[in-house]
């Protein structure tokens, strides 16, 4: 049994990320992305019998009601940055099992007001971190990973900065990217404000409001819509830790396992991929994921990005929408933006930033 080729994405919808959306509700933003995806797929409201969502403070039933949907199969997904990719897999499973015919996946909402909370999370775990002063957001944890990586393999500030700069090049071709048109140089990145060594401001995502959605159907129905179907050929998942102290290693991520499983299901390998979209909360994340997914040997990602064009024009296009670093991170929908972008690219609808030759792409969350 395998999900290979059993389901396809036939519609996408995005709401442009914005720092502040004072005249919007979170559920309304999510709904807008959902409506766009349904229309993009050429379907009607009545056709949607499956719904997967993740919205801060809202539930799948709330969105179903808001959108006038009466799905016969629905689910909420809570998998941090991997919520989007997990939802796509879950939708494919539901379609394969015959539980639904057309599944709408919607992730999004508004950015939290003000700075990140000073407290929160589980008391049981957080009391062992908070008294020692974590850095803003998740930056301190990824900073420790970056330092440990540099210790084990070597990595320069400029190599990490190259990720941010090349992704900005991609963003210039994306009307929805929050940093489109704002130039970025290596010098800008390595002199930007220090957040938590070695990570500087321009290596960190900016939280925004926004939403991303896809419409999925089974392979036998996929050709009836107006868009070219994009098939799910392989999927893999891996969970390693919640707190960084619980990680089996700091410098190899669970992507090493999830990517291998996805490639195995697809019967394909990294060399077959024409484009890559990698979760990028920080620059270091992209480098480690490039290695762990098998695109670059372990320890060589820094030198690789420095010597390789990874923009949409290059030999291995990475994060063509700008990545979350330049597109914006619409909260948990940030991971989902890698999915919607990949679909647009595969369908030849990515406009100025269109990758030329494209048969297969790799996405991680």
């Amino acid at each position, binding site marked *: 049994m395998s999900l290979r080729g059993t389901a396809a994405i036939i519609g996408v919808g995005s709401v442009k990320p914005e720092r502040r959306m004072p005249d919007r509700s979170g559920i309304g933003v999510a709904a807008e992305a959902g409506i766009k995806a349904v229309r993009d797929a050429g379907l009607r409201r009545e056709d949607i019998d499956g719904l997967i969502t993740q919205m801060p403070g809202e539930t799948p039933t709330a969105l179903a009601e808001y959108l006038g949907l009466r799905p016969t199969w629905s689910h909420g997904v809570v998998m941090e940055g991997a919520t989007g990719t997990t939802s796509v897999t879950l939708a494919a499973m539901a379609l394969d099992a015959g539980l639904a015919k057309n599944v709408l996946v919607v992730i999004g909402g508004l950015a939290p007001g003000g700075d990140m909370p000073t407290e929160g999370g589980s008391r049981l775990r957080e009391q062992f971190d908070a008294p*020692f*002063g974590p850095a803003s957001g998740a930056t301190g944890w990824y900073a420790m990973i970056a*330092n440990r990586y540099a210790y084990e393999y070597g990595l320069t500030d400029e190599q990490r900065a190259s990720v941010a700069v090349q992704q900005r090049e991609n963003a210039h071709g994306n009307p929805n990217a929050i940093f489109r048109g704002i130039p970025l140089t290596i010098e800008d990145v390595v002199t930007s404000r220090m957040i938590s060594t070695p990570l500087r401001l321009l290596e960190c995502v900016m939280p925004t409001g926004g939403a991303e959605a896809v419409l999925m159907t089974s392979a036998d129905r996929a050709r009836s819509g107006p868009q070219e179907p994009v098939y799910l050929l392989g999927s893999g998942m891996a969970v390693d830790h919640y707190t960084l102290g*619980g990680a089996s290693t700091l410098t190899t991520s669970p992507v090493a396992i999830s990517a291998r499983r996805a490639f195995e299901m697809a019967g394909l390998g990294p060399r077959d991929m024409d484009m890559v979209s990698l979760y990028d909360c920080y620059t270091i994340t992209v480098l480690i994921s490039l290695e762990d997914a098998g695109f670059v040997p372990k320890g060589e990602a820094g030198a690789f990005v420095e010597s390789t064009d990874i923009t949409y024009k290059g030999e291995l296009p990475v994060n063509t929408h700008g990545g979350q670093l330049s597109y914006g991170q619409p909260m948990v929908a940030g991971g989902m933006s890698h999915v919607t972008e990949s679909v647009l690219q595969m369908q030849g609808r990515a406009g100025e930033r269109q990758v030329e030759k494209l048969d297969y792409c790799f996405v991680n969350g």
Partner: protein
Amino acid sequence: MGAAAVSEEYPFPLPTPGVITGPFWDGLREHRLLVQRCLTGGHLVHYPREFCPVCYSPDLEWEEMSGRGRVHAFTVVHRAVHPAFQQEKAPYVFALIRLDEGPILTSNVEGVALDEMRIEMPVEVYFDDVTEQVTLPKFRPVGG
């Protein structure tokens, strides 16, 4: 109750010990660094739990650690989550300490210049009595 209470004299977040985690903080007040050991498989468990995550044994006992370890990873925080850390401490070392016995603790390393911090540097615990009720386990270079 939040994850961390703040007192007026001490503006930084304080732990709020519960039923499971209380003995860890009680031990620190007596200047002892305690970690749970599972009696079934001998595994050390941190943060504290009701079950050993290796063999699921509910039979856990508190055991004193040597207090020696190494810097597993660290960062110098310039932009802290908590305003008191931002105003009064930044920049400071935020680190994962790997005890010689194995468990990994989040902590601070003090008594060392920021540019002399190194991964795998040997460190030892010292007990910072930050309030009358709370002692935090912090680390400094061995012999420092």
